[in-house]
């Protein structure tokens, strides 16, 4: 299944909901880390924080009807746009 349209939608959502003013959603790497500092050699992290995570979880639920779990489980889901898209695609169907 092609997740590209979903990834683009999620990038739009991130830029809009988190007020990343001036950021072109298309420039967000699918695999870029969303939170904290990036590992060496990895694409630059978006540097989001826990308040962003809450806002993002709320807007994902609003837009796609998926409920992101709280706590440790959320960490891997919020790893990147690609990971978010996989989670949304999987749970949207259910």
């Amino acid at each position, binding site marked *: 299944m092609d997740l590209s349209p979903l990834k683009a939608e999620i990038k739009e959502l991130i830029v809009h*909901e*988190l*007020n*990343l*003013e*001036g950021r072109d959603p298309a420039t967000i790497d699918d695999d870029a880390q969303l939170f904290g500092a990036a590992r060496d050699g990895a694409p630059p992290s978006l540097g989001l*924080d*826990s*308040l*962003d995570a*809450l*806002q993002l979880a*709320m807007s994902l*639920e*609003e837009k796609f009807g998926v409920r992101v779990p*709280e706590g440790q489980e959320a960490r891997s889901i919020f790893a990147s746009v690609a990971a978010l898209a996989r989670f949304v695609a999987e749970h949207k169907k259910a």
Partner: protein
Amino acid sequence: MEGETTGARVWITGTGLVSALGHDVDTTWSRLLRGDRGLRALTLFDGSGQRATRVGGVEEIAAPDTGERWSRTSAFAWHAAREAMTEASLDLARMRVGLVVAGTTGGMFETESLLARLHADPDHIDSLVEMISQPLTATGDRLQRALGPFVRVRTLCSACSSGANALVVGAQWLLSGEIDAVVAGGSDGLCRLTLSGFNALAATDPDACRPFDVARKGLNLGEGAGFVVLERDTRARARGARPIAELAGWAIGAEAHHITNPEPSGAAAADVITRCLSHARLSAREVDYVNAHGTGTPLNDPMETAALHRALGVDVDRVAVSSSKGQLGHTLGAAGAIEAVLSALTVRHQAVPPTMGLTEPDPACRLVHVMHEGRAARVRATLSSSFGFGGLDTVLLLAEPGLGPPQRTRDARRRVVVTGAATLTPAGLDSGDTAARFADGSSWPTSRSGLVDLDLAPHLDTARARRLDRPARLGAVVASRALDQADDGAAAIPRAEVGIILGTAFGSLDTSAAFMHRLFEKGPRFASPADFPNLVPSSPVGHVSIYLGLRRVALATADLATSGESAVAQAMELVVGGEAEVIVAGAVEEASDLVERILVSLDPTSSRGGRVRSEGAATLVLEAEPHARARGKTPLACVASAHVWAGPGSRPVIEGPTDKARARVVSTGDCAEVAAALAGTGWEHAPATSLSPSVGAHEGVGATALVAAVAIVRSGVTREVLVVGVTEGRGYTFTLTASDP
């Protein structure tokens, strides 16, 4: 120190409490020591769909029968303030008594019902008009009529440290010598907005909260009020009043870290605790107990533990610590005042309350916990910590009377100068020079929309400013511009040494309405966690502090049409009192469709096809004169006087002008009101101009008037300008004079 006098002590001579455990001090205190918990299922409103609904609600309590509408917040305040005043046996006829009221939500619970009605019927005019009957200042106004007369009234907000800051402001009033006694405290009622907001932040525990416990999940909201009567020891002794405890030390600071999350190392909070101890000239060795902020959130408790370890050193292994929030819930704007009362009681009764809900301490919260029930203890001094959204921290030290040395009080004549000024109006951003045009009588080019249409982006680092909403952005632009001007041609002011005080009349009314609309429409799960912290009246202060790295006193004041004047008056008191060397002070008001509709509905002829109310922001850099001199800065102007008066019947006490022929008066309000205020003073016949027709009308415009006055003085037209702000028969005057070369 320059201008220093000694000898004063600040005594607490009266206390009052309304809490989930009782409607008075004795009931609350005895149940607190027993370990009773006031955390129950929410009944005040429908909590369906909410993540957590266990709250420390106050059981039904009557408002005084005065024929006007009392919010629950105001009713709590009335009970607690009256209890404190009764205990202190204050005689208002023979004493100059002031009132400081702190809060965050004010009449939000009552306003929410109106928002619900407006949600269903957008043209429900009665609801619109009623909405502005409960601004943050409503509590102070009601108490003024029901318990006054008070000679000075102040309303302030610094999120969850508001209540503690009320005591600091009150103490500064006493030390200035202008006020004999101060009734100071905080009050906050439960409402849908705060419950939904904290739930959206996942900062709540669905069960009873567990401060410092390894299994803690978050806080429970509470409600209530705490008030004290503060008096100078000499004055109290002379009338036979006895101290409950001494307010021996205090410190206010800002973390400049994050709008909702505490600075995790605890270094910022530790700095405020340390400054509180050094203010009291006491050490950790004299402290026997800490009444912690202890919310029970995953982030607060380890941060606070780390801060106590840093600030108390080895004594952290001896000093007992507990949080009262496991019994009362987190009462937000009231918490700092309620906990100050409890801290005073630990000294009075030589006993410490427990942390209820704590059964297995988190290893990250290694402290000497008081668990299961209170106990008798030797308490010489108690620290009370309060940490609020935006990183607004205040720490108080309540001690046995006479434990430490008396307060260092500053000479009330310590000179304060203006070293920077900026204003943003519909005519654009102005650092004082364009404002000088006003001096020769020409009006500013005002955009018809009354809106600031300046593109703010070039004036802000938008990546760092992404969380700042419009009021915060307007505030950041003028504060930044004013500070740059203060730096110009002299040694720069380290931003960490700067404080910030901004006035706001209604807070973020439109954003609050939008937040509530979402709540009504989509349910509590879709309340926006990112928007919630922007709804606190002190939110622009927190944002600007974070954006510019300002780490001294940070708070918001409110006073209807004179909110700008109230902020500058507050800053003057704190700079004169030595609370900070430099404070950026002014006001921010954004355009508000709701306020606009309310004003038009009150006076349908007022709009004449245009906006009734504009928007804008203005700040002054107020700096202690020796501080400016030491860094080689030539001031723009001096603030020769700053006066506050509160009706009924009281008048401004102002001197001058020294040169009647050239003196000018600048105001923002109604010329007849200003003339009435100045009748019989030396300023009576000075040419007076109201700024509002040229710069627009909003509640913070007094700050723009002050910036304009600075420009007028600098232009050389006159050496002396009086700025007057009047609302509802009370007001402010400031004399700005040319800076002597």
